[in-house]
């Protein structure tokens, strides 16, 4: 049993490392060759884990081979659009201004229900709302709505807005995010003093979350409490 435990740990760490190297694409965003690779990796990893007679190297060697192959294929897909289209296919327009393209639908082996389901997922409940719908190579549907169905954005109505700023996390579940302090141009004392002043708590362990943005707006919430927002907090 100890052998199986050690093997499981080794294989887990190797597979984890390989997925870190391969990038952060999620299942729904995978190209066909990436999905195939993931399925094979999952299967290969279990063989030496469960079978004590099989050396761990028999699992690791094909895993390494597949990851190298993956990078070689990715390299060539970047290099050549023809190769990319052979490997991953091409995006296909399934809905156009004339309606659903039945031939394209047959080619992709999908049904009208599949298209409608994907459209609903994107917030379009009627075919009348859609100008174009494109089935991407990763199997996701992209929708271009009709002009009258497009969302109104600030640019459309010439509204003057301040640029968005990303809040910086200072405290998360009682832990001080020390790396973020220089980015936010504050120090530990500022955070401690602010929390004590606004909540009466002298320790950060009571804080659920505290963020600050570049406009000086602070969002603070204790583990036992409601959110509080403070405007124009001056950082040092």
């Amino acid at each position, binding site marked *: 049993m100890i052998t199986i435990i050690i093997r499981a740990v080794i294989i887990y760490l190797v597979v984890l490392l390989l997925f870190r190297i391969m990038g952060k694409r999620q299942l729904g965003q995978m190209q066909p060759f990436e999905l195939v690779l993931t399925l094979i990796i999952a299967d290969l990893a279990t063989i030496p884990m469960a079978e004590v007679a099989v050396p761990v190297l028999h699992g690791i060697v094909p895993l390494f081979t597949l990851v190298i192959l993956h*990078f070689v294929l990715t390299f060539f897909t970047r290099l050549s659009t023809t190769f990319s289209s052979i490997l991953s296919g091409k995006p296909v327009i399934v809905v156009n201004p004339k309606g659903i393209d039945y031939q394209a639908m047959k080619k992709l082996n999908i049904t009208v229900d599949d298209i409608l389901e994907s459209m609903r997922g994107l917030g379009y409940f009627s075919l009348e709302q859609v100008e174009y719908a494109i089935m991407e190579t990763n199997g996701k549907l992209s929708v271009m709505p009709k002009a009258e169905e497009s969302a109104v954005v600030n640019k459309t109505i010439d509204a003057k807005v301040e640029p968005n700023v990303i809040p910086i996390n200072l405290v998360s579940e009682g832990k001080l995010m020390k790396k973020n302090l220089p980015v936010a141009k504050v120090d530990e004392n500022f955070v401690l003093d602010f929390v004590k002043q606004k909540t009466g708590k002298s320790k950060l362990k009571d804080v659920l979350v505290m963020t600050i943005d570049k406009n000086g707006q602070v969002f603070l919430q204790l583990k036992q409490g409601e959110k509080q927002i403070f405007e124009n907090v001056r950082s040092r």
Partner: protein
Amino acid sequence: MKIFSKIMLVLMFLFLIAISVTEDLVVTNSLKQAKTDCLYIEALSEGKEDVREMDISLAVDDLEEHWKNNESGMCYLVNHKNIQEIGTEISKLKVYQMENELSEFYASLEAIKAYSESYLHFMGASLHNVF
């Protein structure tokens, strides 16, 4: 691509080359040695009515010792079940030699040679093995 990924890819590639070369050397040498030891025992025992003689006994001990030394290295590279049979046959061979069971002794010797040859054949890189 990040520098970390590039380094890891190069390391993985080198690892694959190293492991392939090591496997080829270790497995081929181990199996060839087992076969050579068997041929030597066969030559020593040829035409003899009694295989309990000292020189045959020493040769069988050598075969066993060589195999034990090589087996540990092979376990990292080869499915243990594939090499288990050779170890079992060597143990049997030793008993048959001590008991002077001639037909079983020669049968075991042949089995070890056959296993070594067959593993040598299917462990190498060839078109037959790939497909």
